[in-house]
């Protein structure tokens, strides 16, 4: 079994290195195929491990080698395959394999085809390190690794020029990549502080040792550590107020959005909270903050998705919103439900994104859903896939999203957090509305793309076949709720609904369902017949507020970017030029002037040289005498 751990971990690395060998050469299909096969091997290994852990209930713990061992500090490269990490491994490798195969089709015409696979596999390797590590240091390495790969992949089309924000909410890929990276740096500082706090107080970074030592720590230390770690999670999972990078990250290629910015990397924050659940269950205030923030983000992101016109950004907002749901569940102590939603969400959200990629491919990179419509004729399979994924996202039974999301909403009720419950229910309705607004505007109604001279066509066959596992899981993952619960609660704390909630479960489910179906029906009524734009609504304050993302990007621009640039300018002109540069220049000028001055000694006259020599000799003599007398 140990070897399988290494196979699962290193197959993506080998894939990345292999693809990197051909990084500079023109497109070669076999690079994509080899990468996909290696990822498939990694997936098989993960699934076998999952089965093994499921059967025996025993986690597998391997230590590959010592990494840092000096004084009291001991950090090995150790990997832990237990119920939580094996779930993450299975989800990550499964989605990655599909995305790799998909990319062979999607990146078909890209000249950096090979480079793309190298980055994508490197990302999967980092993600595996993140989820499999048995200590916080390894987790952090993976955490930074996925950050770097995310940067590389968002900025994959780095040559695209900047576009202005006003006419089209779109900016350049390199700008978006930098934004994502910088915002994550801010959060990573919090994460590092959290890790340091734990190390100072426990003296180890191994999960088991840290968690065993937690009861001996004072409450304030626990709270500080939990908060700091959660700040790290907020950045990676794009929670308010660090959420702006996720929608801008949609500048990257669509497979990247599907893999990194929907299914895996952004869930790393949720994974961290689940992984460190002993810490978070001991800090109820922080946990409640997590739940409240998650609920807020769920609603906040969903509201922005209601009016957005960009196909990918709508899905990005819905990712944000669903991450909010996961945090709400984790914050309320229902860690296994959070993990369940994480898995289910990964499947249907990746499917949704890849479907959107098909649409983009067909529409020649047009993303405005107001310019689409009626695509179901040309793209029947994509329509079905996106429809299924949207149904799952909206939480319609018996699809995956229904089971996981319903469980979260029920948890909020069970905990007596009725405000959170109400918000989450309303958000469920909004989710259904915006998902189907997008589906109907894209696939139904009048064929608006014709005015723009676009001739859509369906994606390659093999790509559509490759998407089927995701579709199957989006449909069927919910049925495994019971088995999944038994599986992960061996490690995670048990969470049971109270008797009271249990009685009301049907009614609660029905309320959520009414909202979800209501959202879909509303979307159908408004958009299925075609696009009718209402000037009055679109010019209204609320619509503008939502369309401009609450003006938060503008706010950040005004209060952070612009002052920062102003200060930089000031520092450059006043401090750098006038102090730093002036000092350096002064030293150079002094040397130059003194050289110029002493040059006059070089008369070429032997006699004057001898005089100088005598003066030097006398000086030395004087120094020798003085030192003899004084010392």
């Amino acid at each position: 079994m140990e070897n399988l751990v290494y196979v699962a971990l290193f197959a993506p690395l080998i894939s990345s290195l292999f693809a990197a060998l051909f990084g500079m050469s023109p497109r070669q299909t076999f690079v994509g195929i080899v990468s996909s096969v290696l990822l498939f091997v990694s997936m098989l290994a993960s699934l076998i491990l999952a089965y093994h852990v499921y059967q025996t209930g025993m986690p597998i713990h391997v230590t590959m080698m010592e990494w840092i061992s000096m004084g009291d500090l001991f950090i090995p490269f150790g990997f832990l395959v237990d119920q939580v990490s094996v779930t993450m491994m299975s989800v990550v490798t499964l989605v990655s394999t599909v995305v790799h195969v998909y990319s062979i089709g999607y990146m078909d015409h890209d000249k950096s085809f090979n480079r793309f696979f190298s980055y994508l596999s490197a990302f999967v390797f980092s993600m595996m390190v993140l989820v499999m590590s048995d200590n916080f240091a390894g987790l952090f390495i993976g955490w930074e690794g996925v950050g770097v790969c995310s940067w590389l992949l968002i900025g994959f089309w780095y040559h695209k020029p900047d576009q202005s924000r006003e006419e089209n909410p779109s900016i350049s890929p390199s700008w978006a990549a930098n934004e994502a990276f910088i915002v994550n740096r801010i959060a990573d500082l919090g994460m590092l502080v959290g890790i340091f706090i734990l190390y100072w107080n426990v003296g180890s970074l191994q999960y088991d040792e840290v968690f065993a030592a937690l009861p001996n720590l004072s409450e304030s230390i626990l709270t500080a550590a939990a908060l700091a770690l959660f700040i790290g999670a907020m950045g990676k999972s794009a929670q308010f107020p660090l959420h702006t990078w996720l929608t801008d990250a949609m500048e990257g290629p669509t497979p990247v959005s599907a893999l990194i910015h929907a299914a895996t990397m952004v869930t790393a924050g949720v994974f961290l909270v689940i992984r460190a659940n002993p810490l978070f269950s001991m800090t109820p205030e922080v946990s409640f903050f997590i739940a409240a923030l998650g609920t807020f983000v769920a609603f906040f992101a969903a509201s922005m998705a209601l009016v957005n016109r960009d196909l990918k950004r709508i899905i990005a907002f819905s990712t944000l919103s669903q991450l909010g749901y996961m945090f709400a569940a984790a914050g309320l102590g229902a860690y296994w439900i959070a993990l369940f939603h994480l898995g289910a969400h990964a499947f249907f959200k990746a499917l949704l994104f890849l479907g959107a990629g098909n649409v983009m491919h067909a529409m020649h990179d047009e993303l405005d859903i107001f310019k689409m419509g009626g695509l179901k004729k040309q793209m029947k399979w994509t329509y079905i896939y996106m429809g299924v994924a949207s149904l799952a996202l909206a939480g319609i039974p018996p699809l995956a999203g229904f089971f996981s999301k319903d469980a979260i909403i029920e948890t909020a009720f069970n905990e007596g957090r009725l405000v959170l419950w109400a918000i989450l229910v309303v958000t469920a309705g909004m989710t259904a509305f915006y998902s189907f607004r997008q589906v109907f505007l894209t696939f139904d109604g009048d064929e608006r793309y014709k005015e723009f001279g676009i001739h859509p066509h369906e994606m390659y066959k093999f790509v559509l076949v490759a998407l089927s596992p995701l579709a199957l899981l989006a449909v069927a993952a919910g049925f495994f709720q019971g088995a999944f619960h038994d599986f992960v609660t061996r490690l995670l704390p048990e969470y049971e609904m109270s008797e009271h909630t249990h009685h009301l479960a049907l009614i609660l489910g029905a309320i959520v369902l009414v909202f979800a179906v209501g959202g879909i029906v509303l979307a159908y009524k408004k958009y299925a017949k075609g696009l009718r734009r209402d000037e009055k609504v679109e010019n209204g304050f609320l619509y503008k507020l939502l369309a401009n993302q609450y003006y938060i990007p503008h706010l950040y621009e005004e209060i952070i970017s612009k002052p920062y640039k102003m200060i930089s300018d000031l520092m450059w002109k006043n401090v750098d030029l006038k102090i730093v540069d002036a000092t350096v220049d002064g030293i150079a000028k002094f040397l130059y002037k003194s050289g110029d001055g002493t040059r006059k000694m070089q008369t070429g006259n032997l006699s004057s040289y001898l005089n100088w020599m005598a003066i030097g000799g006398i000086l030395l003599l004087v120094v020798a005498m003085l030192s003899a007398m004084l010392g």
Partner: protein
Amino acid sequence: MIGLNHYLIVSALLFSIGLVGVLRRRNLLMLFFATEVMLNAVNIAFAAISHYYNDLTGQMFAFFVIAIAASEVAVGLGILIVLYKKQGSLDLDELATMKG
């Protein structure tokens, strides 16, 4: 009675004369003479101190200095003759060709 100090004073005086010659003279030949004077001033000091300490090392060293000075003069004078043939002068002010 003539003691060590007398020898040393003579030596210092001779050395100073030589030094002034080196510094003030413009003729290369005179510079040579001045150098010889300085060397011999040092020789006097060597011999005197050697005698004072009853140690022959200093006197031996004086012999070495004399031998080396003789060979130096031989080589130096040869160079001077060639220089004079080439430049027609031994005046240092006129020989200043390597002005920086």
